[in-house]
């Protein structure tokens, strides 16, 4: 039964992965911005939740709307200041430029976080953290259940938003043909700005959950690393696939921790990334390109 317990934790971890990665799937997969600072935004989200919990006694799940708003605004400023000038670049040029700019952002945000919150690890512990219930002999934490539900809601919510609403589809149209999207009457500047803000605000949800495990200024790159693997695993441009890819990665890591030891889980995810890039570069869960 012990393996079952590992799978449960794998599913929960995988759901957090999916929650972090879904914003990146939008920003990188659809908008074509290689955004290395994505994990740092989740870190900021986690600190906001931590702050609101510590100073205002606000439950981390209840702080989500507020931190989403804050990250949305940070995202707008970031896009305006750093990325909007890349909007008409060719895809390759856009990736190179945004990678450099966002790597600079990682350094800035990490150092700012050390200044503001110190390098110590922080954690939100509520009355219910650590509480579990019994499911067929396995321990399931309550937070884990909420995490899985949130991941499903957010990933598939975003998927349908992009597929079914005019606004969502215009984001998709811009990613396929920037100039032609303008001919359709789409206000491309405003749309990209808001889309970036949405991608940023989604990291607040992941952040609220991360804050209940552990947050420190250096977690940004770890999270973006996982997110990149998931976006590639799901297939660049796929949103719904992010959920499955997150679960797959979470469970594989957790099962490998059971079989080969917890120190090798990072290796497992990178080996998966390599195998995917060699054998199925379009991703596992993408039928073709596109949502």
């Amino acid at each position: 039964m012990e393996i079952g317990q590992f799978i449960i934790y794998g599913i929960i971890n995988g759901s957090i992965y999916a929650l972090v990665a879904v914003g990146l799937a939008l920003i990188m997969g659809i908008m074509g911005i290689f955004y290395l600072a994505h994990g740092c935004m989740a870190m900021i989200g986690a600190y906001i939740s931590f702050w609101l919990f510590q100073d205002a006694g606000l439950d981390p799940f209840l702080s989500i709307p507020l931190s989403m708003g804050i990250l949305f605004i940070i995202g707008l400023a970031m896009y305006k200041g750093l990325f909007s000038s890349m909007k008409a670049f060719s895809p390759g040029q856009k990736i190179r430029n945004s990678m450099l700019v966002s790597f600079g952002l990682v350094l800035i945000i990490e150092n700012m976080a050390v200044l503001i919150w110190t390098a110590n690890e922080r954690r939100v512990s509520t009355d219910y953290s650590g509480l579990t219930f019994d499911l067929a002999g396995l321990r399931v934490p309550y937070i884990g259940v909420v995490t899985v539900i949130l991941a499903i809601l957010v990933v598939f919510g975003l998927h349908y938003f992009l597929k079914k609403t005019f606004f969502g589809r215009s984001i998709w149209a811009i990613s396929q043909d920037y100039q032609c999207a303008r001919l359709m009457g789409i206000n491309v500047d405003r749309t990209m700005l808001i889309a970036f803000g949405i991608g940023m605000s989604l990291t607040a949800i992941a952040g609220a959950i991360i804050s209940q495990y552990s947050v420190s200024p250096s977690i940004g790159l770890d999270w973006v690393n996982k997110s990149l693997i998931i976006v590639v695993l799901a297939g660049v441009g796929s949103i719904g696939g992010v959920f499955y890819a997150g679960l797959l990665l979470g469970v594989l890591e957790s099962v490998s921790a059971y079989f080969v030891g917890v120190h090798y889980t990072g290796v497992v995810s990178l080996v998966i990334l390599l195998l995917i890039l060699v054998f199925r570069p379009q991703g596992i869960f993408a039928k073709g390109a596109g949502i």
Partner: protein
Amino acid sequence: MLSIKHIDVFYGDLQALWDVSLDIEDGKITSLIGSNGAGKSTLQLAVTGIVKPRSGSIHAGSIRLDNQPAHKIVDLGISMVPEGRRLFPEMTVLDNLEMGAFSRKARKKLGETIEWVYEIFPRLKERANQRAGALSGGEQQMLAIGRALMSRPKFLLVDELSLGLAPLVVRHICRILEEVNRLKGITIFVVEQNVRMALEFADHGYIMENGRIVGRGPSRDLLNSEEVKAAYLGTH
């Protein structure tokens, strides 16, 4: 009337259009002919607001267009079929059509307009749920025109209508555009390299060379003029 007055357009330091003036009469079909690289597409892109003229003006009726962003110009009733179709290849035919009706005004009449476009191009209805990238060349051009009509334009600009299409398909599409023009009163402005086709199709013609307008007149006169015959039609 769509009137373009004395516009100069630059790409960086490179001047693409020189003092171009052109009138497109309401309810008529106007064509702009000229060789590859003459600046014909640039002129249409200037009307749609994708490129901005450095000097001169563009008006639709009494509304000035050249100082407005591209997405506002679509709202004002100007729609373009870009060169090479430029469909959204990963979207279905239906999604592409719906993107054409993005502007708020057009969105309200979405259902009605789609029915109309399906009536004009029944083939699109059959292929509604296929990916646009999987269509044949002729079907793609039909979809590109259908998508442009979805915004309920007063002026329809078509860039390189016949490019890469079989003559039979071109004739079919021209007939449909004539119908759209006659029945719905939509003004059509076509840019074409195929001079004979363009002049036979249009009421009025303009000739462009190296970014300048070098000839104009009723299409029939242009078709019969010795210069046009010598330069473009290869007959004397």
